[in-house]
């Protein structure tokens, strides 16, 4: 079974430093299945042209591939209309689009923006900029000891002054699952809009934007088997309609005269310049792969793996695990440290065992400071990982301190 899944991912089938590659950094980017690579190749081999422009067959093919991906994404996330799906470069660009186009125009002096302390810099720095430029106040939802956002925190921080709430559904550092439904409901009850960073959730669990009733949801293709350079912004039509364009240029216009321009309709208003059709082709194949695999199965595999990893790592002396150990509240992301060994040294040592993990602040410096750590090691899992991967991780981790002269093996 596992072997069969791994056959779809040729990147995993290689030796690193004389050992089998154990890839545990899918929260950063996932490996790509053959079907995605083939779809991209097919596009460039037989359908490549500039979409939306040419009146010739090839351009129409490219347009069809691009627009078909929009429909596939709409259905995958349970959105109502194609015009509510805007393609971006990635989550970061999608969040910047909202910050510039919505934040800079509809947030005013004294308004409050609420985010969580666990946000990735991409969902933090843009809001800092909006708050500074508009004289708004940036407030944080803090975490309890398990790394979770408590109900009281939501009740107390989101107030009548709150105009915008932007939180991640799953923390990229702790893997904790945030109560986004409650957060969205609370935001709406005070008249604020709610943005969900789904970069770490949509690849791993079933997410339905209509059920959640989020105003915006953003995610990246490359964290869900698709290539880098294609991301998605879902936004409610009424909001997208009233927002000015983010990038001006070709393909996003209706009429251009010497002094004035009218803009194209949704979603093209937000897609200035030639778009990443090859990326869209890859994204459609990625969604197809996930749908055929089954999102419930993806989630079940990851839960099984994170459960196993928590048990395994807890057995090793000198390992500190961060965040909740309750796998019902946690996705397939595990942050930890090895006592006395800096995460970068841990990552280098694990690399010599063929194990790829992330080390550092994970683009979440305020969270690191809040947790009173300088950095952590992070192992993250996806549908192609196995218990054997975790066994190899655990074995290598048990050796780590010895390399730096602490104790004996």
């Amino acid at each position, binding site marked *: 079974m596992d072997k069969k899944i791994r056959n779809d991912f040729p990147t995993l089938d290689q030796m690193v430093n004389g050992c089998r590659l154990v890839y545990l950094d899918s929260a950063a980017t996932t490996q790509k299945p053959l079907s995605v690579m083939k779809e991209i190749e097919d596009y460039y081999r037989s359908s490549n042209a500039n979409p939306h422009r040419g009146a010739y067959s090839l351009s129409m093919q490219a347009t069809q591939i691009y627009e078909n991906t929009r429909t596939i994404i709409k259905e995958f996330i349970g959105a109502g209309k194609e015009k509510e799906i805007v393609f971006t470069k990635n989550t970061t660009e999608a969040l910047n689009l909202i910050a510039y186009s919505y934040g800079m125009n509809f947030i005013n002096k004294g308004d409050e923006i609420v985010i969580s302390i666990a946000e990735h810099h991409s969902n933090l720095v843009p809001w800092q900029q909006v708050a500074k430029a508009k004289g708004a106040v940036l407030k944080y939802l803090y975490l309890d000891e398990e790394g979770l956002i408590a109900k009281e925190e939501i009740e107390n921080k989101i107030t009548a002054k709150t105009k915008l709430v932007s939180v991640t559904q799953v923390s990229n550092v702790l893997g904790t699952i945030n109560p986004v439904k409650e957060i969205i409901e609370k935001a709406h009850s005070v008249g604020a809009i709610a943005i969900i960073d789904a970069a770490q959730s949509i690849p791993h669990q079933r997410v339905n934007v209509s059920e959640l009733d989020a105003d915006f949801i953003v995610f990246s293709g490359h964290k869900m088997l698709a290539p880098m350079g294609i991301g998605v912004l879902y936004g409610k039509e009424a909001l997208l309609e009233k927002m000015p364009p983010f990038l001006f240029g070709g393909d996003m216009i209706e009429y251009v005269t010497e002094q004035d321009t009218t803009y194209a309709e949704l979603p093209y208003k937000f897609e200035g310049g030639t778009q990443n059709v090859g990326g869209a082709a890859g994204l459609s194949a990625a969604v197809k792969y996930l749908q055929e695999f089954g999102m419930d199965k993806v989630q079940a595999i990851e839960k099984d793996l994170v459960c196993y990893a928590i048990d395994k790592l807890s057995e090793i002396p000198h390992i500190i695990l961060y965040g909740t150990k309750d796998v019902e509240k946690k996705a397939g992301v595990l942050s930890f440290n090895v006592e006395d060994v*800096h995460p*970068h040294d841990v990552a*280098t040592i694990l690399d010599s065992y063929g194990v790829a993990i992330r080390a*550092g602040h994970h683009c979440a410096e305020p969270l*690191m400071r809040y947790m009173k750590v300088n950095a952590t090691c992070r192992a993250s899992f996806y549908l192609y990982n196995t218990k054997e991967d975790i066994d190899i991780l655990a074995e290598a981790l048990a050796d780590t301190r010895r390399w*730096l*002269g602490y104790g004996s093996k």
Partner: protein
Amino acid sequence: MDLSSLYSEIITEHNMSNHNKRHIEGADVLEKGHNPSCGDEIELELKLQGDLIEDAGYTGVGCAISQASTSIMIDLIRGKTLEEAKQLIEIFLGMIKREITDEQELEILEDALALRNIANMPSRVKCAVLAWHTLEETIKKRALEDKND
């Protein structure tokens, strides 16, 4: 690369020993160094007597490579002039960039030779050079101040 040549005894001992990890009483110079990509942070403290580095120490956090490299550098520059320190920095950075490979020329680096193989690990080069760049910055600033005086 081979882990044991990266985490050699010299590196692990400097990383663990902490003998240079201290504040310098009456320090004349404080200089902060930071690697934003990995979060390594050091603060270098120098006590000068004219152009002579009478004592030096550092505080901060970072990986074994950055900590050991800082400690090795401090052992090397203590008792040297700023001009001599500048030369050592040039030779060290030359070694890391593989621009200087002559054994005799490198000999002067003593324990810092243990960091030679870091050139094989592009992801860790920044850790090894952090302290040296920080000291280079200090010396540059000092030269500029002297000029302006």
